[in-house]
């Protein structure tokens, strides 16, 4: 083991939800690693388990769902099974989270200043006036205007973009070492999206905060990530440095995603898409989850492939990595 453990290291994480119809395997063997200050983009479609991976890190999995096995280490400390009080001390201070829908994540009946001051005082002893000053600073840093007025406002008096800025400001109040952003721009319109992405990148770089950016948009990975993990069916099917993965995708699913990007398609033609539907995470078997939709699938794919290292930083889960079938 290296003397300096990575900031976040997830090994074989499995988060399952028992249902009357069977076990819903939302996360089914995820390995990933984030170094301090790095930006990791976690890409996947709805139901691929990317959000649940993020939630598992913060221990936000609601019963009956639970982390069945695996390990999540933050700076070498095991988070799974950590007492709630210790976990609470880490939440918000060391590891913070920004959620998808800014309409829902701020408490509708509390003023912005109340919510920010509360978040500050949860981890640091400070006077009300000090906390208010810190909140004021934090909102200015995320590019809010007329901050004093905004602090006195209720969430419903702010637009979606402003609310997400507030949520980001709150998440960065304690300069966390790790920020998990769960599709923070999905609910916003495109112009606000790019502003928010820009602000978050800038602030994380300033604070030295590592960022796990959960998204369904592979194009975003290109724009902001150091490394990328592609998730499918509760597993990471391909991971590695963004440039390498995007320039030479090894997994057929990544290739399918790349081919369906509008920018890769010819104007006037139908967009390419991956045939079939995402698999159900219910009662998943031993075969490769992507096999039913995969052009390269054969009998070997009845056994799920193990993660194969392609280089020190790249790995893929496929029996037929890099093989392309000619249409």
């Amino acid at each position, binding site marked *: 083991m290296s003397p300096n453990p990575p900031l976040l290291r997830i090994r074989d994480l499995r988060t399952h939800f028992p249902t009357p119809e069977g076990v819903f395997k939302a996360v089914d063997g995820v390995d990933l690693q984030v170094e301090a200050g790095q930006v990791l983009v976690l890409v996947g479609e709805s139901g691929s388990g990317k959000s649940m991976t993020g939630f598992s890190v*913060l221990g*936000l999995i*609601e*019963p009956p769902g639970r982390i069945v096995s695996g390990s999540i280490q933050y700076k070498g400390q095991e988070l799974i099974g950590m007492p709630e009080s210790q976990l*609470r*001390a*880490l*939440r*918000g*201070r060391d590891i*913070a*989270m920004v*959620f998808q*829908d800014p*309409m*829902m*994540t*701020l*408490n*509708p*009946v*509390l003023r912005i200043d109340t919510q920010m001051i*509360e*978040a500050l005082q*949860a*981890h640091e002893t400070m006077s009300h006036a000090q906390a208010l000053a810190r909140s004021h600073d934090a909102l200015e840093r995320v590019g809010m205007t007329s901050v004093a007025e905004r602090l006195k*406002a*209720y969430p*419903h*008096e*702010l*637009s*979606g973009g402003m609310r997400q800025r507030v*949520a980001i400001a*709150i998440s960065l109040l304690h300069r966390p070492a790790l920020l998990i952003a769960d599709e923070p721009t999905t*609910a*916003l*319109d495109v112009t606000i999206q790019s502003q928010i992405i820009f602000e978050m990148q800038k602030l994380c770089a300033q604070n030295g905060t590592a960022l796990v950016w959960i998204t369904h948009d592979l194009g975003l990975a290109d724009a902001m990530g150091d490394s990328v993990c592609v998730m499918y069916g509760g597993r990471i099917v391909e991971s590695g440095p963004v440039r390498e993965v995007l320039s030479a995708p090894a997994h057929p699913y990544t290739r399918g995603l790349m081919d369906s990007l509008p920018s890769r398609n010819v104007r006037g033609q139908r967009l390419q898409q991956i045939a079939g539907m995402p698999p159900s995470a219910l009662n998943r078997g031993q075969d490769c989850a992507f096999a039913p939709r995969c052009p390269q699938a054969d009998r070997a794919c009845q056994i799920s492939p193990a993660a194969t290292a392609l280089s020190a930083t790249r790995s893929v889960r496929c029996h037929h990595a890099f093989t392309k079938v000619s249409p």
Partner: protein
Amino acid sequence: MSTAADIHLAPARTRWQQLWHDYSRNRVSVWALGFCGLLLLAALSCAWLAPQNPYDLAVIDMFDSRLPPGSRNPQGMTYWLGTDGQGRDMLSAMLYGLRLSLFVGAVSGALGIGLGVSLGLIAAYWGGWVDTVIMRVVDFMLGFPTILIALILLSLLGQGVDKVIFALMMVQWAYFARAVRSTALSERNKEYVEAAISLGLSKLRIVFGHILPNCMPSILVIATVQIAHAISTEATLSFLGLGLPITEPSLGLLIANGFAFLLSGLYWVSVFPGLLLLVTIFCINLVGDRLRDILNPRSQRTP
């Protein structure tokens, strides 16, 4: 995101301003609220409004008993609503009785809210066996008729204002616990709770600082209904002779005192306190109904 834009463009009102805006669109409800305010004011200032102090035995003359409304006594004082069996001025006794009834209703309601809301929130947020234990007790309490529990408690405790308040609190908290639990259960699944957990806030902080304020609308509705219920239950208990002591008559006791004279044609001793009780409860219920209409997202917002 048209909704976001709409919300942003709408004139920013605080929640209370919005509440009043919605509430005041119904004139009857505004009158009812005004009447409630008037009754409250009259009850609070009864020491100045009442022509006589009904607790002061020195000013009460037995020879003035059972006088009809409008009679005058030798001192030149007019009994506008007549006198009761002890010669007390009915108007004064009713004002003091109203104060006592409202006080008992409000205090027992507030205590019931405190206990019921806390237990309901704890049940909803902690879940598991805590929830099961609390809710089974609630089911047990709600399984008995209110008046029966109150009667049992009072016959064990004896008479007195504090005992009546305690008994009324005990019969009311279960309603609050159940209502708050169901609201809190839907609130705890909202994303702001997850966000609050991710900030490292403590459980108590999340329950009482974040979930409770979002349960206020339903608490407000049930509180008005329950306070009216508490006042009528207290009146019933006093009427049955197990409530407040006879030296401090509440509205229910005044009705009971006059009950014996009702058949002899001395209607005023029972009927006037009865009417006051009716109007009081009616007005509080009207306010509660209106609050339920505007605060319940499922019911239509009618003007």
